[in-house]
């Protein structure tokens, strides 16, 4: 009996006789989550209409995409760093590999985006890009067919990379072969290109006039910071007789600093560019400034706590980092449509809807991509294993 099956049996034995146990049974949980998620999205569409749902859905979907797409480079970097360290950082790495399993889910949930494109991207309405006449290349690039092809290629490459780097989960080092076999450089390089393409195509393009060459890097840094913070929150500590606790605050602080540095550099470089001023203008209201101040304080707190790291402190900071980055994903998208930054009921319902759909789709897609189902260190599984062993 596998760990999954034993866990399912344990949970079933615990909760079969209660209503909560009935709905939380692993056999029904994913279906229930899917139905709840679809209901949330249907409710938003019914109440506010598709035009209002589209940006909220895009922002919520970006939050989902950030988990696997952000986890990918961090997993590669930790894998490489482990080659130089006496003790590998197992639990965090396995958790990040677990997040990679969401890549096919994000790909499947991206399917509505080409259909919603007329509601999201000004170029579909024939708007001028960059304030100048289109070149033949730009005319070809900004067509719906090319957009759909780019999206398909992007996710094909990302799923391939996720499969490549999740496959090493649970392998003993001796079997994994040479660590520096070139996969890290290739993987990081490909991810950077694909991530830039996706960030520019899907997020930056919601504003017809604003463009920044560093936007791809900025979005990828935010995704990675979000994914690492989420992994820090859910990964169990590395335990064992001779194991030293790894400091997880420093990588989180470094990613936060990179993300904040790119934001600052973009703001300083664009200076008084009118399109950039307009872009920042709609994002700079009370809520936008509050988000900026809170994020700045978080970066300072994380940097200061690297002097005194600890598990609880790291998780405390990581929880706020996750919240701030989720808000940032909405900050990138929704102000271009609403004219100001605020997170309303529609955005929260869309987030709940996408989360529900993702929870519902994850189990069947994991069966479809068995190479991604390598997560031996999830806390729930460990608890289930201990429970069945006690019985």
């Amino acid at each position: 009996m596998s760990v999954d099956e034993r866990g399912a049996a344990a949970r079933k034995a615990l909760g079969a006789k209660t209503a909560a146990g009935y709905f939380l049974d692993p056999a029904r949980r994913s279906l229930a989550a899917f139905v709840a998620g679809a209901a949330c999205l249907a409710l938003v569409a019914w109440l506010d209409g598709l035009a209002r749902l589209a940006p909220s859905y895009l922002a919520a979907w970006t939050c989902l995409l950030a988990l696997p797409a952000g986890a990918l480079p961090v997993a590669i970097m930790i894998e490489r760093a482990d080659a130089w360290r006496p003790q590998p950082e197992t639990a965090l790495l396995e958790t990040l590999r677990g997040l990679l399993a969401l890549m096919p889910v994000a790909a499947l949930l991206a399917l509505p985006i080409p259909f919603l494109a007329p509601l999201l991207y000004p170029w579909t309405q024939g708007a001028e890009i960059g304030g100048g006449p289109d070149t033949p290349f730009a005319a070809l690039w900004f067509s719906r067919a090319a957009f759909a092809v780019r999206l398909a290629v992007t996710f094909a490459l990302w799923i391939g990379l996720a499969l490549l780097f999740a496959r090493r989960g649970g392998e003993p080092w001796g079997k994994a072969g040479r660590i520096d076999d070139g996969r890290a450089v290739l993987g990081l390089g490909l991810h950077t290109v694909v991530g830039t393409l996706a960030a520019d195509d899907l997020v930056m393009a919601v504003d017809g006039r604003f463009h920044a060459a560093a936007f791809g890097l900025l979005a990828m840094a935010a995704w990675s910071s979000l994914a690492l913070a989420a992994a820090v929150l859910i990964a169990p500590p590395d335990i064992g007789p001779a194991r030293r606790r790894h400091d997880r605050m420093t990588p989180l602080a470094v990613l936060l600093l990179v993300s904040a540095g790119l934001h600052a550099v973009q703001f300083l470089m664009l200076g008084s560019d009118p399109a950039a001023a307009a872009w920042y203008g709609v994002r700079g209201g009370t809520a936008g400034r509050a988000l900026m101040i809170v994020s700045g304080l978080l970066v300072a707190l994380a940097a200061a706590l690297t002097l005194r790291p600890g598990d609880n402190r790291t998780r405390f900071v990581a929880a706020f980092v996750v919240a701030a980055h989720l808000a940032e994903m909405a900050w990138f998208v929704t102000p271009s449509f609403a004219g100001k930054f605020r997170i309303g009921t529609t955005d929260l319902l869309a987030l709940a809807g996408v989360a529900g759909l993702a929870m519902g789709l994850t189990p069947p897609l994991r069966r479809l991509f068995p190479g991604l189902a390598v997560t031996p260190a999830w806390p729930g599984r460990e608890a289930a294993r201990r429970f069945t062993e006690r019985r």
Partner: protein
Amino acid sequence: MTRRPPFPPPAAGLGPSADERLLGPPVVSPTVTVAGIGAAAARAVLAPAGPARRLAQIALPVALLGWLVLAPVQAPFPAAGFGWWAGLASGCLTIFGLLLLARVDWRCGIGRLAQTAALAACLVALLHPAPGDRTALIALTLCALGLWAAALVPDLADLRARPEMPPWRARLYRRAALRWHGSARQWLAWERACRALALAGLLAAFALQTDLALTLASLGDRSDTLLPVALVVGAVLSGAGLIAALAAALRRAPGFDGFVTGRHLDILGRLILALGLAGLYCHVTEAVVAGLYGAPPERAALAERLAGTGAPAFWTLLGVGLLPTQALWVGAARHSPVTLGLVGALVALGAGAGHVLLVPPPATGYAAALLAEMAGPAALFGLGLIAAFRLVPAVSVAEMRGLALMHNRRPVTLPAGAAGPPPEAGLAAAFASEAALVEALRGLGTLDALPLEAHGPAPMPEAAAALRRDERAVREAALVGGALAGLAFLAAEVLRAPGSLSDIPALAWARLAIPALAAAAAGAALGAGAALAWHLRRPAAAPPSDWREVFVLTLMPDTQSPSAGALARRLSALPEKAGRPLALRRAEPAS
């Protein structure tokens, strides 16, 4: 001609170990020992010049003189040269700083090269007129100088005690090493000071490149947000190339091929390859975004760069600075010192073309200006490196010893107990390793009543913890120094600004953050350096001079104190494998 033996030496009949299969060749040759490292470093600084160095010692001053006589007084590449040398300095310091902060052990072989190259490049950059503010470059120079000097202290202390040193050198090293005796507290302070200086150097390098990008953007009316990233990537790439070229050259020096191994070449090659890809990414992304989303002036600027007046510099950057890095996909190219050194040198040279793209072309033409730059500032840089490595070892003796202790454990033999000089005071006990010394401390039990100190040839974190030594002065001094310098800079800028505070636009406030960060880095470097100097001026007991390559436990009071005899008996009574010292020495009774 003598054929050099291959490295690593082929193991007779043995396949590669599990570690070697996973990670590649070792970071230090198996033949390197703690005693051998100091001797090799002393031989290197005293060695007579070989043919290559003699040629360089003649050719470089001739080139420099020729440039001074024939060329105009001003720098050949006023702004581009500044950016190029500042980039080389930032790159070298960034690479070393990141490796040090991440505690990557293979840095030991290339650390001194990176620090010295960073310092020399900073000094050459200072000769060029800056396109904007010089605060960040001064901060970087302070950090590079501080890190170089701090990292040198244990090595100079080792050199000062070597009998083969001429008196003037011994005097120089004695003064520079202050009161370094390798005590656990001194090692703690040294490690923390080096880490603080490395972090300050990283911040200063980031501030310098960002400030340069903002200045060039305002001069050239550019708003390309990837420019700061491209400058940082280009700087680190050129630094990696320079380090690779120097490492390949250092490997030819007798006795140093065990310190700079095939593993170093392989990793440097991978680093250059990855950074080359990152550089290509920056240029391609910039071109694609400008082509797709850019306004007509941006597209025109792109066309000008690809096919107009900027084309020679752009294609030189691509052909010399970026494309050769792709040869390093091939393992044989990475493992060949000649190929790697050549690619590294090309990359370091090609970075100059990237800076030429950002400023108006020189009046004398690109080729003439480049030749003048090679004859003048580059010759000065080369002479600086040669002079530095005549005075100090080209590898860090202290860090290499730590690496050798970790990877190449050997049985330690000591001269007979009475043969060597006695300790200055109290009692001295020698141990083969830090672990044995810590075992002895555990065996002794209560330590509070005994004024003990541990000494060693490499950092001793476990011994410091066992002795309950802690060090906070360096970190606190760096933080206070950084905060004070940053605030002082902001206050000075506010006082200089015309009108009231509310007249300063928000963007100007934000823009001030970059030089303020540089000032804070300079303050932190000064604070950390001052705290280390304070530590090294405190009186400390010295271990016997012939025991500098083993771990030594010393007792501070004089031998008349009853505790010295009692401690000697307790140490001798410890089990052989649980802390009994290899040898014990007591100070001679005071007359």
